[in-house]
């Protein structure tokens, strides 16, 4: 197949870097409100029927939303194999914790209302809480660690090696900056879940959701600003020493990397990227205001814009780095040296170009069919089919 050479390796790498962002953002925008809703569940809904209403707002859609996460994993494997290899094994116990929490979710949704025992139901309510809150927190913690560099190096065989004891690796993740990043992602998704509930429920639940959502939004905005300041003064950035070879073989060891700059230097070399944090602040602030007011669809949309801004801030600030190494900067993974081969990137782009629009189309149709508020009556009158 010679066809793939029509699209340059360099362009394909940038496109796949963008697609990686698209998948992560789509995941946060859709499954983000499922996680936020789960984390809010025990607090915005007090009675059993209220809790069923909350669960059933996401009941028909969480499963499709979660696929953004699975697809994110699959696409990293296909397009960025070194990133897949280094990150998931480096964050081993953190990943296990995320998986355990995410496994609780499907089971909790499906099984909670299949028995009448109140203890059974309460137990699953807290499982759903964990299934939402734990990943929302850890994803942010992981991003916080990536910005500071992760303790790995690559051998000459390109085998990833990590430093530190196993508990050190796990507890070392919980450093102050990473925890701040965790708080940002957690509160951001909490606000997103609240915006979803404000749209899909009415009465007490919606009112409580707005209260929690407003508070979470304020924390997210403050945390995002603080993280920006911290990044400016307290975290070292990385840079490529020599001009990047953008179409060379994917071998991270071929490039020289220095750790003597600030991540925010990117804003002087590429000033236009300031649009990303601005979108983050504007989106979250407007979402907060709409939650305080009476906005329904608008609160959710602004919240999505805020998520877009926050996540793309991280990506654009770090470009071309995707996973810097704290102990051996040369091993750092960048867009130019840790992708799949030219052919694989091309084949996967063709497949994505065919299926992604289809996915968006039928997902939109499903949301349209399910449009409208979920009421207590919906749950009680259709008890066998809903959660």
């Amino acid at each position, binding site marked *: *197949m010679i066809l793939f050479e029509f699209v340059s390796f360099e362009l394909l790498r940038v496109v796949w870097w963008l697609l990686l962002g698209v998948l992560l953002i789509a995941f946060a925008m859709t499954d983000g409100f499922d996680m936020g809703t789960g984390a809010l569940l025990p607090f915005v809904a007090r009675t059993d029927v209220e809790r069923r209403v909350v669960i059933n707002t996401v009941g*028909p*859609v969480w*499963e*499709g939303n*979660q*696929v953004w*996460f*699975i*697809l994110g*994993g*699959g*696409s*990293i*494997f*296909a*397009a960025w*194999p070194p990133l*897949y*290899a280094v990150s*998931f*094994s480096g964050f*081993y*116990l953190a*990943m*296990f914790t995320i*998986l*355990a929490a*995410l*496994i609780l979710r*499907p*089971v909790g*949704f*499906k*099984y909670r209302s299949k*028995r009448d025992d109140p203890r059974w139901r309460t137990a699953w309510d807290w499982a759903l809480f964990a299934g939402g809150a734990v990943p929302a927190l850890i994803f942010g913690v992981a991003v916080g660690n990536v910005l500071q560099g992760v303790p790995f190096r690559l051998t*000459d065989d*390109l*085998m*990833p*090696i990590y430093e530190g*004891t*196993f508990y050190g690796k796990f507890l070392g993740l919980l450093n102050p900056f990473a925890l701040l990043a965790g708080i940002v992602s957690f509160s951001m998704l909490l606000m997103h879940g609240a915006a979803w509930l404000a749209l899909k429920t009415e009465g007490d639940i919606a009112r409580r959701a707005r209260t929690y959502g407003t508070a979470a939004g304020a924390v997210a905005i403050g945390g995002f600003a603080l993280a920006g300041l911290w990044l400016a003064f307290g975290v070292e950035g990385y840079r490529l020493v020599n001009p990047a070879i953008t179409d060379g*073989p994917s*071998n991270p060891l071929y490039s020289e990397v220095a750790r003597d700059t600030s991540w925010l230097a990117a804003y002087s070399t590429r000033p236009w990227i300031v649009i990303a944090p601005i979108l983050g602040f504007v989106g979250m602030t407007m979402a907060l205001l709409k939650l305080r007011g009476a906005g329904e669809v608008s609160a959710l949309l602004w919240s999505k814009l805020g998520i877009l801004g926050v996540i793309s801030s991280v990506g654009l600030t770090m470009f071309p780095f995707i996973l810097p190494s704290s102990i051996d900067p040369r091993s750092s993974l960048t867009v130019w040296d840790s992708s*799949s*081969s030219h*052919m*694989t990137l091309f*084949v996967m782009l063709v*497949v994505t170009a065919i299926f992604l629009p289809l*996915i968006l189309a*039928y*997902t939109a149709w*499903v949301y349209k*069919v*399910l449009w409208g508020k979920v009421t207590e009556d919906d749950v009680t009158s*259709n008890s*066998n*089919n809903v959660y």
Partner: protein
Amino acid sequence: MEIGVVELSRLQFAMTAMYHFLFVPLTLGLSVIVAIMETVYVMTDRPIWRQMTKFWGTLFGINFVLGVATGITMEFQFGMNWSYYSHYVGDIFGAPLAIEGLMAFFLEATFVGLFFFGWDKLTKLQHMVVAWLVAVGSNFSALWILIANGWMQNPVGAAFNPETMRMEMTSFAEVLFNPVAQAKFVHTVSAGYVTAAVFVLGVSAWYLLKGRHIELARRSIAVAASFGLASALSVVVLGDESGYTAGESQKMKIAALEAMWETEPAPASFTLFGIPDQEARETKYAIHIPWVMGLIGTRSLTEEIPGIGQLEEENAEKIRNGLIAYDALLTLRQERDQTPQDVRDRFEAHSDDLGHALLLKRYVDDPRDATDEQIAQAAADTVPRVWPLFWAFRIMVGLGFTFIGVMTYFFYRANFKQMRFPRPALWLAVCIIPTPWIAAEMGWIVAEFGRQPWTVDGILPTALSVSHLSVADVLITLIGFMLFYSVLFVVEIGLMLKYIRKGPVEDVEETDAWTSRHIQRLSTSGEDPAALAAPAPQPAE
């Protein structure tokens, strides 16, 4: 054997994958059976078929959710526990996994919600389409994961790139149309259909034995027996196809599961029974059927199937060839563009055997320092443990033929004996419910245990594929998964039994009214009403 990260990682992968595959086959088959039932409902407008769709749909849902939940682990475990594998073959292996997400997971996961929540929101026809989309999505996902797995068994369409120290794709079409993958796909999907057919048959038989939900049970048996018979035939025929394609690509696996210690003159005989003795390299108490193995493995009477001893010698030779490639690789990596042409040529000539040199990494850091004994040891490592394969294969095949027998019998009784089923036959149907799961797990043992010591056959040894983790890391997650999965298993089985005991609970009045009218109509039109009423056996209590 010393228990290290490699052994624990293998144990964890085997456990989580086999656990995942407790739910997958039923999802594959039941999604199709439910869609068939709903299609009958849409075509005939008979409420009993809607009741059946909803009832089996509920059981499908309880099972589906654990398939999804345990599937999350699978998607990330390659990176977590097998990071060198992920780096080394991600360029090829990652693609089908990502396509699986794009093409299959989104389809099934997006529409499965609508299947349960959409009964009042969709037209009948729309809802039926949704049911089919769930079934198609599930089955597509099996296609892509088996293309990925098929590549591990028969790595086509890829070449090693010394600059990136990994395998890279040279032909997507070859990966896609890998004959091993195609045979595996149809074999696995058919196995899923058989599983669901046996499940529906068994549960329905139990209702007939208890005298409950007679109309639902009889129609369900009719669907399950026809669907099951076709699938059981397909699973055996395609299993044979798998054997044939494996014979082409994985000679050692075939030799091991046949306990063929030495090459036999063609056509080789099939060992029906025996006790393989790995130490002595002989099979005790063997009962042979002449010719059969030669026919399965080569589809000829003259071609030889190589035995274990011969293959081991060939592998020792490949290791020595691989060392030449390894030596050239180190120069290539050092000199890059300046590498002399003769080194390049040497690498090209022997790069197919590079993986065999990597087998030595277990014993020496630099394979080029290996002694003759270590080479012999590495060649001996290419012989998998024979007895688990030998027996897993025989249990699987024996059960496969049993399913053909059972399904034929029920198909015959359902279609030609007015649905009259003797009670012992019904009890048999109940008792064999767990067996398709056993057959499926045995199949995976044959496929994956038989691939050892490789993760990718001839390319990357298992011992080299793992992540740089501590024993404590893997022990924590292994125990964590075991405890967590055990709890989920108990919860799942409990709910399954609860909803089976409960039976169909929806649209009961409407369905019962229609059923009695229907029986009435049949009896006045001259048909034998007993044909419908009689087979209802007395409740056992």
